[in-house]
């Protein structure tokens, strides 16, 4: 069967593109829309570096067949900064030296955004659970957890 037209609302913009049968949301973001923040790590749902928000929930975008989510809203790391300003999570990662090689960072930040959207006042345990599907092979988890807790504090009024 031929490629299909898919419509998504990506980072508050309507996007329309063609997807070959079985294309993942991750491949569509990267290859059709040029959004390179979400990374292709394992393509098995094990590493978390492709994490994006799909209708507000964190998902492994490599496991989503994009044709099945026509019409959905997607948020990627590219949609996190506002008016050119880093958001609290990004700023906390930057200032807290919470990236090493950076390959996991986009997924870590999106998992953190999903957590803070639902739970603005997380415990350290909540943060660890929220990023339990995101692998950092530099093993820099300490500063990452600290940065997410710092971001929560920055967001509190």
């Amino acid at each position: 069967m031929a490629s299909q037209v898919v419509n998504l609302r990506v980072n508050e913009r309507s996007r329309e593109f063609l997807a070959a049968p079985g294309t993942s949301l991750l491949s569509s973001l990267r290859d059709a829309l040029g959004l390179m923040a979400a990374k292709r790590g394992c393509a098995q749902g094990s590493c978390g570096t492709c994490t994006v928000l799909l209708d507000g929930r964190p998902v492994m975008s490599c496991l989503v067949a994009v044709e099945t989510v026509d019409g959905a809203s997607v948020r990627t790391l590219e949609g996190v900064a506002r008016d050119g300003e880093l958001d609290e999570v990004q700023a906390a990662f930057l200032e807290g030296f919470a990236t090493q090689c950076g390959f996991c960072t986009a997924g870590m930040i999106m998992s953190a955004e999903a957590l803070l959207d639902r739970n603005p006042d997380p415990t350290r345990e909540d943060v660890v659970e929220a990023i339990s599907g995101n692998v950092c092979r530099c093993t820099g988890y300490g500063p990452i957890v600290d940065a997410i807790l710092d971001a929560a504090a920055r967001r509190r009024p």
Partner: protein
Amino acid sequence: MITAVRTPESLAAAVGHAAAGGRLMAGGTVVMAQVNSGSVGSPELVSLRRAGIGGISLDGSAARIGATTTLAEVEESPELAFLRDAVRSIASPAIRSLATVGGNLFVPQPYGDLAVCLLALDATVEIAGPDGSREVPVDVVLANGVAPGEVVTAVRLAVPAPGTWFYHKAMRRKLNSAAIVAVAAVVGTAGGVVTSARIALGGVAPRPVRAVSAEGVLIGRPLETDVLDEAGRAARGDIEPFDDAYASAWYRARVLPVHLRRAFLG
């Protein structure tokens, strides 16, 4: 090579595509991983995402969970709060927002911890097919799957009375790891002794299994350490453990009594 992905908007259409040979996919956490590695084995996928078979409803203590209800939705359901610890022991949040209750019945061990719970709960599975619908006990689906063209549409279970539900999972780390041993049980007591017991085990056989030998040991006796140790040793007769990257078969059998005891006594 995938040639078509169908996203039918009704159950009837989904059954039709499945009967025509399409590979069913709910959350995609298993099937899309196979698509990505080129091992899916079917050129046509049928997504259940829009087939209208999701959602949780409760009538008294009788719960009905639609097949495409996600694990995240179960986790957040106040009515199914007793399952929250079990669901949170499965994978990670970004998997739980995709993975479904129905799909969990078809994942190979040592995954499928919710299926272990459903076996302990004596759940009923609703199935739709080209020749109509049927209902079967969950152990039948776990043992035999469903026929080609059939679609699991819901599971039904009785929410256990307070204090009768037990769940414990041993894994290599605290979060996001498969079962070495998973124990789920509904055990009722009266006058200090066990009056009813239904115990299911995960991680210790090719599919979730009932620990009928352990149940027999418990009946009429108190939930105490020595009784549970005896039940745990008896449960070794109910398992067919396997080696994998998480643990050896020997280790699984060795630690089973410990974890069976911890399910009840912490």
